[in-house]
């Protein structure tokens, strides 16, 4: 079932639409959620349910904007899982962001960071872009990425390290520019 049909079905018959969506994208969504909420199976299920409810809620907008459903679900699942993880651990920052930002003095506003990251990731060359997408959006491990891209795990880690340094520099530069503008 293509995205359009699925979204229309979700609007007309939520039960059937959700059933189809879960059958089609449940495994991918669950994969992302489980990577964050490894030891909380109950929470993971709740999180998955939240993701599909969000899909039902935004079905009309997704339909009008022709947004790819699978990707949207994966990103939403990642964000929802991180939100839930935050609530569970009472920690503000997910390790990946800490890892990325460190003590760099980058803006603390997550949405700003997200937007910048997206722009920067866009500018990365292939296959670094995919590695970053997998690492930071799909929350895959280096091993999984290496297997998916037929690279060695070491190679993936080196590319990630280099990419992070590059992103850091760009982030600092962009952040600095914004700070300058603000000041």
């Amino acid at each position, binding site marked *: 079932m293509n995205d359009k049909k699925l979204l229309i079905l979700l609007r007309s018959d939520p039960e059937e639409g959700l059933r189809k969506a879960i059958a089609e994208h*449940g495994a*991918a969504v669950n994969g992302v959620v489980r990577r964050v909420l490894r030891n909380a199976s109950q929470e993971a299920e709740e999180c998955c349910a*939240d993701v599909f409810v969000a899909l039902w809620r935004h079905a009309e907008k997704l339909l009008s904007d022709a947004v790819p459903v699978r990707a949207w679900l994966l*990103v939403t699942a990642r964000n929802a899982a991180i939100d839930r993880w935050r609530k569970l651990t009472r920690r503000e920052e997910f390790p990946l962001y800490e890892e990325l930002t460190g003590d760099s003095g980058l803006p603390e506003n997550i949405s700003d960071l997200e937007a910048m990251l997206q722009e920067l990731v866009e500018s990365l060359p292939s296959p670094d872009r995919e590695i970053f997408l997998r690492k930071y959006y799909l929350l895959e491990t280096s091993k999984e990425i290496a297997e*998916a891209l037929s690279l060695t795990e070491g190679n993936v880690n080196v590319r990630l390290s280099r990419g992070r340094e590059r992103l850091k520099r760009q982030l600092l530069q962009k952040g600095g520019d914004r700070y300058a503008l603000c000041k």
Partner: protein
Amino acid sequence: MLSANKRLLEQLQYLNTSQSPLSKQEAERILTKSLDKVQAERCSAADLESKYFQEDGMEEDIGTEQIPVFVKPGRKIRRRIASLCAACFAAGFFLFLLFLNTVNPTAAENLPIVGSIVEKVNRQFRYQPKEPEIPPEAEPSFLPSTPEPTGSASPSPQQSADTLFETISDDGRLTGEIDSLTGEGFTLHLALAFTPADGDLKQYRFLTYQSVELKLDGQDRRIRQESGLCLERQGDGDVWTGETEIDLLDYEEFEEVELQAELTFSGFEAWEDSPVSGAEGVAAGDTITFRLAFAPGAASLCSVENTGQESGEIFLDQLAVNSSKLLVCLEISDLISDPVVILCGEDGSYLDTVSCEKLGPSSAGSSSDWRGIAALPSENRERLILRVSGQDGVTLAEYTAIPAPSSRPSPTPPSPSPSPEGEISHDPAESSPVSNQPVPSVQPTVSPSAVPESRP
């Protein structure tokens, strides 16, 4: 944000990411949870939406939000018109029902759905004011020690006539008599006594009837009810008694003087394991019809005053007086072998000796039932005294009967029975069970008219 990230999302869309397949149970649980949340959101959205259609046209505060209210005057008007139409329809229907009930209550009562309600209301209106008038019929006989009201409640001499109850059996195999008839509200308690023609009721101890047709005031009003009589043998005699109740609640008017009843008993059943077939006399499924005539005033023929001399060995069960006869039923201890019952005038002067016969052992066990009948003096008596004594002449009990005005013997002898069926026999001893004759004879029986006020 969605449009800005579209390119990123398109890249993500086709990334072959690792998945964690859901088990069937997991998928079902996720679906259930999702649906619950969707339902909850829909409900809250519906609640919120309903706020947009406030009829007062004012703005509604929901939290900090100011929600504009869309007034829909068309809807408002439609709603009001619908309410008005409904009210008009209900009022019209009510008026129609009222009119129909006034003109033709039967038709109103036969209407579907509302018919039963109309019937109940009608019954309430019909019966409530008449309730005090019921006693002449419904509470005929057993008002012990209460002087009878004079005047309109009592039947005319002609109505009370010579018999309290007339019992006619046209069956020939079984003679039925009314043993007693009492009223309790709208229920008639009818005790019947049966005498089988061959002296034996065989194995039939339970008499069922599918219908009781009760003609009131000669009019064709019938009660149909199914019930039965459990027959008990009285003593060692051939008399079997059974009691039943007849519900008169459905009757509107029976304040009329004369109450004619025709009871049809049908469908006999054997008692316990007794064989049904092959028995003589009454056969299973037979129908016996009794026509019972009783005047409502007959029950109030006399009241009794206990003079206080009743010993512990004698109890008065029944004392009835009509225009020419007196009936007394006593329960006398077996220690008194041959009781003497004397009828005296109010001054104590001797009038007559009541010939008594022993019916058989009473239910008490150590005593027997006795019944006596005496002819009344022709002159009008205000009071009659009944003395019961032993062979030694010592008075053991004394009762004072106060005949109701209508039942007091008149100076002129009463006319013969108004019953067209036959001649009245004044001596119960002469009244034998009705045999197989085309026109059945009439058996005069008397009703219990009074019961002593208290029994030890």
